[in-house]
């Protein structure tokens, strides 16, 4: 069967066409992000401009990646992964420290976080491993594939990102059909290892978990962020204070207000109505992504698309949960809204990959 006639606009972009729904939604979200950041950064033009630049780069990459055939991803998965690991190791030795963690690399005028690359490189490799006849050896290999970057990132120390990589990796394994008995075994092992893990945590990480359970116990210290965040969110009310009126944030009550806690600024300005609208947009992206996933041509497509989209869902839900006080401070940023160059670029790139998957229509009979 010939592929259906494609709309004219797509023809212009040709092979680099991005899924239109995804495009519209991400543009919308990115725009909201820019407006919110404008209030949150109160006049830091330089940073805002840098952010817009990154957004631009991200969209460019989105188109580029959309044009790369899916087969390429399958083939290059390993190499991309290994290259990222190398970069990650480089970070440990020559990395820049920022906010108490060594995460950044400054190479040829470009400053980025290799750990962000691994957020898609790892699932990519995993999907290519597990897409065909997943069996126990392959699952075990997957664990190794997950463990290496996770371990390197934990050492930075960046527990949040490491956990995310572990989570998205396990997600792929789960989606690929890991038998229940292995899942249960893993859970049991995890529970047994919990005390060991706890003692291995840094003090501040332990404190975050403890204070999470009772933020009021340390209002000026560790519980401060959560409490202030809730105050900012709550004070937005139903309709919000209006664009630009994020007093809680602009007066410095919310630390990290343009990165991890950007949602607080958004919630304060746009209220419950605004928050629901935002969540709706995220949900729509997820729906679109899932739609692409289940209609994908092959198992690799199913896996990679669903893993990306579920990870995306995980990110925004964890972040919102953290900002509204349901989870301890984790360091997970809000996708497309938070200020942070690498993450936006990587995210938009991943949507490009999604688009590529969506367009992939090999000449074989559709399953289901």
């Amino acid at each position, binding site marked *: 069967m010939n592929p259906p006639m494609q709309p004219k606009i797509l023809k212009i972009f040709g092979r680099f066409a991005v899924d239109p729904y995804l495009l519209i939604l991400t543009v919308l979200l990115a725009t909201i992000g820019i407006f919110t950041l404008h209030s949150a950064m109160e006049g830091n033009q330089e940073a805002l401009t840098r952010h817009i630049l990154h957004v631009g780069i991200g969209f460019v990459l989105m188109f580029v990646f959309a044009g790369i055939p899916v087969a390429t991803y399958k083939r290059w998965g390993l190499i991309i992964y290994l290259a990222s690991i190398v970069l990650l190791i480089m970070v440990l030795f020559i990395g820049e420290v920022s906010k108490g963690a060594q995460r950044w690399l400054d190479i040829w005028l470009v400053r980025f976080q290799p750990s962000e690359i691994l957020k898609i490189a790892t699932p990519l490799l995993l999907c290519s491993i597990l897409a065909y006849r997943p069996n126990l050896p392959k699952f075990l290999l997957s664990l190794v594939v997950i463990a290496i970057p996770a371990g390197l990132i934990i050492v930075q120390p960046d527990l949040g990102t490491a956990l995310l990589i572990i989570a998205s990796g396990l997600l792929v394994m*789960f*989606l690929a059909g890991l038998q229940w008995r292995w899942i249960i075994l893993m859970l049991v092992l995890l529970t047994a290892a919990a005390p060991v893990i706890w003692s291995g945590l840094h003090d501040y990480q332990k404190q975050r978990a403890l204070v999470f359970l009772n933020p009021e116990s340390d209002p000026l210290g560790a519980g401060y962020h959560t409490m202030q965040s809730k105050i900012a969110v*709550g004070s937005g*009310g139903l309709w919000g204070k209006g664009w630009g009126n994020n007093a809680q944030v602009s007066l410095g009550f919310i630390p990290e207000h343009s990165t991890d806690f950007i949602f607080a600024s958004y919630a304060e300005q746009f209220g419950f109505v605004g928050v629901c609208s935002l969540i709706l947009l995220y949900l729509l992206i997820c729906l679109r992504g899932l739609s692409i996933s289940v209609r994908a041509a092959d198992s690799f497509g199913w896996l990679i698309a669903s893993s990306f989209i579920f990870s995306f869902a995980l990110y925004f*839900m964890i972040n*919102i949960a953290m900002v*509204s006080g349901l989870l301890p401070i984790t360091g997970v940023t809000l996708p497309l809204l938070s200020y942070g160059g690498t993450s936006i670029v990587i995210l938009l790139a991943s949507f490009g990959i999604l688009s590529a998957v969506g367009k992939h229509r090999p000449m074989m009979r559709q399953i289901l």
Partner: protein
Amino acid sequence: MDDYKFKRVFLSRVVIVLSILLIALVGILLQLFSLQVGSYEYYKTLAEGNRFKIAPIQASRGLIYDRDGHPLATNKTVYSLEMPSRFNDKLPQVLAQVGEIIGTMPGEEKHLNQVSNYLTGVYNTILRSNLSEEEVAKLAINMHQLQNVEINGLIMRYYPYKDLFAHIIGYVSLLSAKDLKRIDPRNYRGQRYIGKTGIERFYEQDLHGKIGFSKIEVNAKGRFVRKVDSHLSKPGKDLMLTISKRIQQSAFDALGEHNGAIIVMNVHNGDVLAAVSRPSFDANLLGYSFSHSAYQKLQANPFKPFFNRAISGQYAPGSTIKPVVALAGLSYGIVGQEDYIYAGPYYQIPGQERHYRDWYKRGHGRINLSGSITQSCDVFFYDLAYKTGIRRLAPFIKRFGFGKKTGIDTTSEASGLVPTPAWKLATLQQSWLPAETVISGIGQGYLLATPIQLAVATAAIATRGKHVVPRVVKAIRHGGEWKEQPVQRKKDIQLQQSDWDYVIKAMRNVVHRSNGTAFRISHNINYLVAGKTGTVQVVSMPEEGEEEIPTELRNKLLEDHGMFIAFAPADKPEIVIATVAEHSGSGAIAAAISRKVLDAYFSQKRAQ
């Protein structure tokens, strides 16, 4: 087929993950709803609380003037460098940094003051007080280097005359926990200073004014962002005192190196024209020019410079009580105006051995009441007191205001003591001895009086019975007009006109007759003075079996106190003076001191 099965499993897994995520999403939405809609009011209030702080606006303290309009207590803005006390562990570094910017002060770490802001409960450590303009500028430029410090401007009390009015006006110093009990804390939010003694304390409510509030927006560091709302403060009321700076200065200088007190008072309305106490101290040392070492020295001074002798000093009146005792004798008919006795060198209670000696070793010889006043004959008064008896003498003395506070409008007034048998039994659990009656006649024994009480009693004699209530504040100004304070009077002391005349004449002779104990001061005088000297023993005369005479001030010096009371002009009295010159040796010296002050009063066209 593998793919088919795979997809099957895959889809089921997708459904599972999706369900979990959806449940979580519902949870999140519920939480958001709860925050933004359910508990909206709660978070809105917290948000307001975060942002807005109520900052107090200091009220300008009322000024204090003397009766001629000279400002005696003013306000000056002082800048200090402060740091919240919770950062005290960083003190050494901070002080080092400050030292680099404006130079170090030796030994400053030892005595840093702490102050608290009762509104926020924030305790600050004062790193440097009294910054000069230059230091303020240097610090302001370098503020970014210094963490957690701030420059605070405060309005502080300043006394241009330093030690001249330190006792009567008192001073303003740091609020302590004790002070909280006597004020309305709501009017003292963010205030550090309060009147501690004297007029500053007695009239604190009038002087303090009402603090204002400004609602300010702050950022997370508590730093001021902008003012949102404000209620202006109301300045305190100004006070005009009855005190005359000129006379106060002359009294202060006249007393010179002697410790003691001088009171100059208007006989008709109780206006206190001067109230001096020495040793004195620079009142600024408690506030504006606070110096810990200077304060310590003053505290350790055995002559107690902080003690207001004019109002709180209790002395045995000595011979200055004789005019009152004389009036008692006349009033009860114990003695007549022309009754003469033979006064030898000593007196004996009938039937007793003990000698009560006269200061004049030879004895005065044949003498009547008037002469006994003029020449201060002890023997006459021993006898008179004995015959009158303590049960009549004590109440009579009390009629002149002794043993009770005068009611002057300032703090720490002492009530003196008029001993009675009942008092002695109750207080010392001993019975009264006739000896004590006898020595009461010459103002010794348990009898104690303050200089202000002496002034009031003398004024009563001068006016033939007017019993005034002394006052220091003449008028209060609130806004535009001066409002005169009411003059208070106690019940007149009713005695025979002839009795008054007699005693007044005898007191005139003290100064203007050659045998008067204060005759020397009449040299070159152009107004008439009526007075009475007193020489008060500080250490009891050695006599076996006699009780220890309690004294108010314990000291090692053996010299007697010199005292002098007087009113002038004797024919048309305007003012009284009561002078105590500790350890000066004799009342004549106190009289000489008083002469200088009286001259100052009369030299100018009679000051109102």
